[in-house]
């Protein structure tokens, strides 16, 4: 996959993810409709490829207004990854030399790897994660389970212990998938399934679409590093 193809695919997937998020804002408050209606128009221009790269520049500018409106990301980590992807893609499209473009796009791919590796590292140093207690806490009293019936999972310590270690080991091992293309593809399928489970159980649908949108960046980076 060439840099241009990978960046274009990431732009399109990210624009679609941002359209999905923006539509959710149109139904609630009038003062949010202007911001997110504008974002939908710019995303549609990105998808159609019209006036490139200016719709991306517009989206990056608009992202600052949205950050100011909510005094931070509306939905924590998922919006932060969306912002990172948007700004990296904007830089990739504006920077003058192929080397600087590769640097901006490669940074996005590298951050995706780190998003898994660091998440695993900060968990495995915590005794509560190693014992399965932390995941039990997530189910027992955190704000995330989408239904009360899911809180019952807190009473299944063996299952949660196995799940905790599966998540931590997968996240820590993820960078190794860069060594071999088929391993990376399997890793991304597993990671996508993990995000799908989080979306279903904890309502984190924005993570699912945003992380999926950035997968072409890591596929490109792997090809660039290995070949």
């Amino acid at each position, binding site marked *: 996959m060439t840099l241009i193809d990978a960046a274009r695919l990431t732009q399109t997937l990210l624009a679609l993810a941002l359209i999905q998020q923006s539509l*959710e804002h149109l139904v609630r*408050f009038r003062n949010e409709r202007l911001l997110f209606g504008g974002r939908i128009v710019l995303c549609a221009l990105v998808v159609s490829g019209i006036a490139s790269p200016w719709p991306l520049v517009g989206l990056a500018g608009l992202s600052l207004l949205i950050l100011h409106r909510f005094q931070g990301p509306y939905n924590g980590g998922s919006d932060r990854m969306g912002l990172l992807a948007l700004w990296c893609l904007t830089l990739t499209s504006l920077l003058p030399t192929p080397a600087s473009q590769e640097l901006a796009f490669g940074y996005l791919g590298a951050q995706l790897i780190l998003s898994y590796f660091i998440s695993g590292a900060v968990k495995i140093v915590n005794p509560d994660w190693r014992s399965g207690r932390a995941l039990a806490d*997530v189910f027992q009293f955190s704000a995330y389970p989408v*239904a009360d019936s899911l809180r019952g999972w807190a009473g299944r310590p063996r299952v949660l212990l196995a799940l905790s270690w599966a998540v931590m080991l997968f996240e820590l091992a993820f960078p190794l998938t860069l060594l071999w293309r088929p391993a990376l593809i399997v890793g991304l399928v597993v990671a996508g399934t993990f995000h799908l489970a989080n979306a279903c159980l904890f309502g984190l649908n924005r993570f699912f679409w945003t992380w999926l949108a950035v997968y072409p960046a890591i596929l490109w980076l792997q090809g660039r590093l290995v070949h």
Partner: protein
Amino acid sequence: MRSLLKLLLPALIPSWNFFDVIAPSPRVEYARLRSIGDAQGEWREFRPRPQRLAPLEMLRRLVWNPRWNESLFLVSCAERLTEEPTAHSEDEIFKRVAADVRAEPEDAERPWLGFRLVFVSREADAVTREILFQPAPRRLAEIAVA
């Protein structure tokens, strides 16, 4: 400009420490009150989660999940209020609770709206609840929900 950079930089140089520690978890509770000093309000959890959610509904929420995402935003506001209180976070919670409450039957005897933040955590094997933030009530009619 500096405040915008402060908001943007954590996205450009992320920490990725998701769920490193399971911190006390906030719940927003609200009550309609007779007066600003009414201590007899009936406090209710804002948007309690359903008992069960069908798998098809979970999948539908992959593409349409505005209420849940708004609730997660309120969790962020609640955490900000206990870490570094701002009028913005308090206003956002009042606004979003008021928008829902106005859809309920009118209660002329209770024109004030209050909310409080209850933080749920685990101590040893017991789940405990503690009220960590409760701003002065506001008149429901005066809360802008546009």
